[in-house]
């Protein structure tokens, strides 16, 4: 599997994501936000956590307009895989690749801690290493992770089995406890928790490893 990790000037989890991809056996290329093309042969694009452009006002809004995001959208539209974590999830909603928006946390404070997540579906390349209904412990670290969409959208996401993860106890006020969602072709995943911070026994536990391993397994076969 060949993964590209997009680097915005304020990304700060790009190395962490690259390390987690590599640990699962992937080849990783970093892609600068001013680039306009994704390297040849990339199976998945990772959009990492951080504060892409400072994000003082609307998280991910400026990043969504950066040159590389056109190529990310084109990759997704071709059926390519895109994984957006934390700020990456915010960027994916701002580009319109995923529905909804991430509001300020209900408690108005930044929260960094390990939380319980329920795996809602194992039917995706990201989650097939888990069983639906599993509870996993994965860290969150965000100020704006309060997922919101209108009722119709939430119902559609739930009806189409596109909610990938929910919080066992919502830390941020997210509607329907949503922590991560899939695109309609199930190849784009956006989630607020950081699986790359739970992919190493010496740091944050290992509950996130299954996501990276499943991806590498699924994407090492030719994409159809």
């Amino acid at each position, binding site marked *: 599997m060949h993964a590209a990790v997009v680097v915005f000037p*304020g990304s*700060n989890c790009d190395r962490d994501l690259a390390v987690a991809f590599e640990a699962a056996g992937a080849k990783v290329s970093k892609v600068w936000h001013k680039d306009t093309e994704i390297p040849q042969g990339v199976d998945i694009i990772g959009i990492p956590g951080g504060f892409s452009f*400072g994000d003082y006002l609307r998280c991910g809004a400026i990043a969504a307009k950066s040159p590389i995001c056109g190529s990310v959208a084109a990759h997704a539209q071709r059926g390519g895989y895109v994984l957006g974590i934390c700020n990456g999830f915010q960027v994916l909603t701002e580009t319109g690749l995923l529905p909804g928006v991430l509001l300020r946390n209900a408690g108005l*404070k930044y929260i*960094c801690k390990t939380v319980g997540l329920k795996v809602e579906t194992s039917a995706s390349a990201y989650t097939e290493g888990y069983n639906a209904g599993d509870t996993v412990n994965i860290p969150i*670290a965000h100020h704006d992770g309060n997922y919101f969409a209108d009722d119709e959208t939430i119902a559609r996401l739930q009806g189409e089995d596109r909610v990938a993860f929910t919080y066992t106890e919502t830390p941020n006020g997210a509607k329907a406890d949503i922590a991560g969602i899939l695109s309609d072709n199930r190849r784009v995943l956006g989630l607020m928790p950081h699986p790359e911070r739970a992919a190493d026994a010496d*740091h944050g536990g290992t509950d996130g490893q299954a996501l990276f391993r499943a991806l590498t397994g699924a994407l090492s076969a030719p994409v159809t």
Partner: protein
Amino acid sequence: MQEPAITPDLIASHGLSPDEYARILQIVGREPSFTELGIFSAMWNEHCSYKSSKKWLRTLPTTGPQVICGPGENAGVVDIGDGQAVVFKMESHNHPSYIEPYQGAATGMGGILRDVFTMGARPVAAMNSLSFGEPSHPKTRQLVNGVVEGIGGYGNCFGVPTVGGEVRFDPAYNGNCLVNAFAAGLADADKIFYSAASGVGMPVVYLGAKTGRDGVGGATMASAEFDDTIEEKRPTVQVGDPFTEKRLMEATLELMQTGAVISIQDMGAAGLTCSAVEMGDKGNLGVRLDLENVPVREEAMTAYEMMLSESQERMLMVLRPELETEAKAVFDKWDLDFAIVGETVAEDRFLVLYNGEVKADLPLKTLAGTAPEYDRPWVETPCAPPLAEVPAVDPIDGLRALITSPNYAAKEWVYTQYDTMVMADTVRIPGIGAGIIRVHGTDKALAFTSDVTPRYVKANPVEGGKQAVAEAYRNLSAVGAKPLATTDNLNFGNPEKPEIMGQFVGAIKGIGEAVAALDMPIVSGNVSLYNETDGAAILPTPTIGAVGLIDSLEGIIGCDVRDGHVALVLGETTGHLGQSALLAEVYNRIEGDAPPVDLALEKAHGDFIRANRAHIKACTDLSDGGLALAAFEMAEAAGVGLCLEAGDTATLFGEDQGRYLIACNFDQAEALMIAANTAGVTLQTVGKFTGDTVWLGHASAPLAELSATFRESFANAVA
């Protein structure tokens, strides 16, 4: 624009005494220009010149085989083996944080991070030591919320994990909170960058964010006492932009790899003035600045404002001219300003031109080197009268009083607002004892702690100074680390008062003795004086930040308490209650002497812990709150009950130094007993971890109930 005339009022408003002005006249040989007066005030204020403290700072041990660079540069540099170095420093941002808590604390983080990456190190860990007034004081809540959010807002965006710190409350900080920020970075030991300029005619380059009017005169403000006009000083607080800082860090580290950097200095207090003078002074060169080339973000800025602005996220560099194109390309990539604003000159001269007009023309060496230095009169702190009898307390009531106080309650409300895990190398997040990060890509780890018990320092500056270092040593030892070196952030009141100066002199003596005995030299630090409001001083607060090395991840002593584990105490318990947490929180009595510190014993006990770490499942040092609080915290973290045999107040709550609490299984306890016998150290079984109840002697309470109190009290008090 007409510049103001130099009048006695103008001189006084620059924080310069009549004697100091007379000296300026002598140096310049004429009346200084307005800009020159500003430059002198920037260089000679307490914050930048250390004029009251220098004499005493010189007495501190600063060398050792592990020290690559001691005090005097942007941060200290210490060898961690394998060609790598840890670069660290702690610095205060007290005055700005009191005036404008969010921005004051945020820019405190910004400043300390810059100090670290200016040396060529990527920041990998941060801590902060915070002291606030009593929780019921009308200003405290706003300060706590603003400061914590400011630190988080800056550090989280920048992308450095916060791995430790302290928060305390005492009425002595009502009018003057303390915000001490620590940062550490990693670098290759042979790729450290320094500030000394070299070569004549080399371009002086301005990097980073544009200059505005924010922070003009900030360092002078930070060198004065507060009174009720403090709100008027709000405009002297700078505004932070962590996104720019993050880019500045990436660009600076990338620039260093091009080989274009001869020397580099961050623009901190007194901005352009201090950085230019320092680079010239250290390199024995003069500097010429052409201010029209300085990137500005406000219109019609004067030379005076540009020279004194403390706008954040800026650096000054001396560039290898042949690599200008490569260097500029790096800053273009990161969309940051890169402007040649002057050059190094052969003669001893600090020449500041604005559109060709001379705004300042001063002898640089004299400006840097002849800042006044004072041998302030001081009096020894009198011995504390002996402690009157302390009535016995029901042990559970005593424990409950401690964990209900925000001083000893869990600090989760604070540290969950900080990103503690970014960079994915955090081995231990804040909570109990030292924070730990892995050295990226290796099997080594670094441990960090920040400690001081201001009550002790006030009662007995020498023992209190020693104790701060000893506690840091113990916190590092308790996780299996070998303490390497120390940074000190010395916060005191007005040094012109002999009793305050006496506290300073005493604390330095204690710190010096302790770092020498425990082999953890001071490699960087900062002094913050005049922490007084309306004549009332803070508690003397010499914050000690220390770093330890763990040679393999396997050597880390974890926090793995299980039901059935034995509780052991290493070190002698005599039940010292003077200046204890119990006395303060239960009886509201601030009395007695600080506990004495036996440095040889500290060393022996730290060595014992390290040598026997394989037998230890969990370990914590005993500090304020004594055995009862430490054992409760350990049990609470594991979710296991506790049964301590002792029920008497002095044994449970005494604060004798040099002690550790150890948890392990029965076989390991036996092995430790034998080892203790051989090593000649005191090791005693004090109880065990078991069940779901906390037993202190014959008193008990459910763990769950105490745990809820412990976790909720902080937010209840200040959120």
